[in-house]
């Protein structure tokens, strides 16, 4: 539909509502569980599938070009820094893949304000934060503005 929610697994926590970039995962007022209110604006980005603590959300490929019988399931293990996929074909074949997603602990990024404050005069130079060191070359390249 593209995404759909399993009635018996969804507990209405709203994580999918909170994360959906398209604002299409909403809580049904009668059943108090989430569902996709606008499948034709679903990118199959899997943000809600990955975020669901109950693994209640799945995808059925777009009806206008995807034949039935397939399944693409995912387990994103944030703290392990990996994501695992299981792909079942319409004809029953299965493929499995696992890829890394992050090399550092979540929350470990150093905020820009934690670095020493730049010299006030730096605001007038073309250098951006952490440059030139972060460029890993001696100096920021420049180009005379002579029109060829």
């Amino acid at each position, binding site marked *: 539909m*593209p995404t759909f929610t399993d009635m018996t697994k969804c507990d209405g926590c709203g994580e999918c509502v*909170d*994360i959906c*970039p*398209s*604002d299409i995962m909403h809580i049904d007022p009668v059943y108090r569980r989430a569902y996709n209110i*606008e*499948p*034709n*604006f*679903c*990118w*199959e*980005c*899997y*943000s809600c599938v990955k975020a669901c603590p109950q693994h209640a959300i799945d*995808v059925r*490929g*777009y*009806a*206008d*070009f*995807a*034949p*039935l019988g397939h*399944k*693409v399931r*995912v387990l994103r293990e944030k703290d392990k820094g990996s*994501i695992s*996929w299981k*792909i079942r*074909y*319409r004809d029953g*074949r299965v*493929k499995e*893949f696992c*890829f*890394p*997603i*992050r*090399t550092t602990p979540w929350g470990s*990024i150093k*905020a*820009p*304000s934690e670095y020493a404050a730049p010299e006030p005069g730096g*605001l007038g130079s*073309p250098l*951006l*934060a952490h*440059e030139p060191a*972060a*460029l*890993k*070359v001696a100096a920021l390249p*420049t*180009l005379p*503005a*002579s*029109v*060829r």
Partner: protein
Amino acid sequence: MALFSSRKTVVVDCDVLVIGGGFGGCGAAYESRYWGRDLKIVVVEKANIERSGAVAHGLSAINCYMGMQWGENQPEDHVRYARGDLMGLVREDLIYDIARHVDSTVHKFEEWGLPIMKDPQTGHYLREGRWQIMIHGESYKPIVAEAAAKSATAVYNRIMVTHLLMDRKRPNRVAGAIGFNVRDGHCHVFRAKAVIVAAGGASHIFRPRAIGEGTGRTWYAPWSSASAYGLLIEAGAKMVQMENRIVLARFKDGYGPVGAWFLLLKAYATNAYGEKYEEAWFDATKALVGAYADVKPMPTCLRNHAMIEEMKAGRGPIYMQTQACLDTKEKEDIGWEDFLDMTVGQAVVWASQNIDPKERASELITSEPYVMGSHATCSGAWASGPEDCAPADYQWGYNRMTTIEGLFGAGDTIGGSAHKFSSGSFTEGRIAGKSAVRYVMDLNGAAPAADAAQIERLAAMIFRPLDTYRINRNEIVAGTVAPGYLLPLHGLQRLEKLMDEYVGGYSTFYVTSEPLLERGLELLAMLKEDLAHLGAEDLHQLQRAWELQHRVLTAEAVARHTLFRRETRWPGYYYRADHPRLDDAEWHVFTASEFDAKTGDWRLGKLPVHHIV
């Protein structure tokens, strides 16, 4: 207003306001905090920055990295590449500026925890092509959003910004922005000293090839709703190259990426009979565009052109011969991860249609057109360039400031600077962020004052579709057909159909002409009038209503620029049937427009293309 009397107006004052929390906006937040330690920096986003913007899904490659540390490329090389790919017309100063900074951005991404693949022999980043590096990018956006969230004073998620606010005394100076909270319906007014628009480009301007649920599977995200342009056009900013829409050659229906397949895995495209067709079209293409046909690598639009001609000749489907290259498990993993990191829908298509890329070829197609500024295309606002590199007439103030004072842009917003992609958009956000801080510092407290009358007028206008629906809904029993209103989806479908049929969508094989454009503009004018009758059942539909407003204004700019440029500059993106050849004598220029919201008039003109490399 009476129907929603519980609605509040929330006012937020800040120094730097960043509209849109995608890659451009995250870069802007990071850099403005680095330079403006004590400033109030606010990010406003219509979704949730952890998964918003074009990279919400993830990415499998970073498409803009020089590798200066290993002497792989210099910024000038990238300018030559982007210029060639865009058939000669780019802002070389802006592209150079991004290229010289982008490596420091990518090195930060790696330090933050983005897994970048390495070449086992050299230890360098694994190249997909000359400019691209391969990443394990499923969490690319959450990682970058973490940095942005730590930089901003506050992030306001789920606020749809509908309009920019202007200064009370100086109508060409920005003073903030207004919108509404999609969850609680409160009106939000942001008053700012500097504003950086880092909103998204446009999907769903032209009719998608899919017809049902699959219309969600556009190449660019369905939530890329043209706010990058809609906000600026309405405010009167000068826009350039709006005719330069992009068509993508991608795996059919799922729109899975082809870069890794062509460049890294060395797969190749053929017609239905297994023949490599691109070279066969070379002479005919050269007759249309002259020496631009000789550019290496072949410009994106010209590769599309060959595919389109081959389809028209009846030798489709076009196939990517994937089975010819997946000879090891490692390569199979790379091929699949390419989709699973950024376009899961393509994996769903393969699983559903029993296509194993190891065993059989997979169809390619040219997509519906999109309007954006960060890929192999460069629609967007005219912006002041870098002080040390920009020619004099490309420079009137602070780097990346638009023609509106205090209004900066990054990513899809800025025109003329193609091929920035994710890393370049973040980098452009950094450039704009630093500039905006400098602008705020230079103001010395002389803050702009938002026009109270404008705020009042807009606040009433923003919520009108809710009232229109409530009042007129009582006329009908049930359903979506009502004489008193048009739902946002109705308006969107009308827009997509007319842009497709008159302005060069897929159904005419991307062909348009002056009579077609004139007729299209006539119908578009009626659609614009009808937008006054939009009805929204709830806040979600109110968001869709304002997304539609941004799309319609953007679409009009596309149609007007397309009419103005009397040549076919980018065969494969679109064709002017009445001017089928590239014409460098007259049209080696940027097209520019300014919209006057008071009169509804558009002023079009030419701007010079300077070559500095």
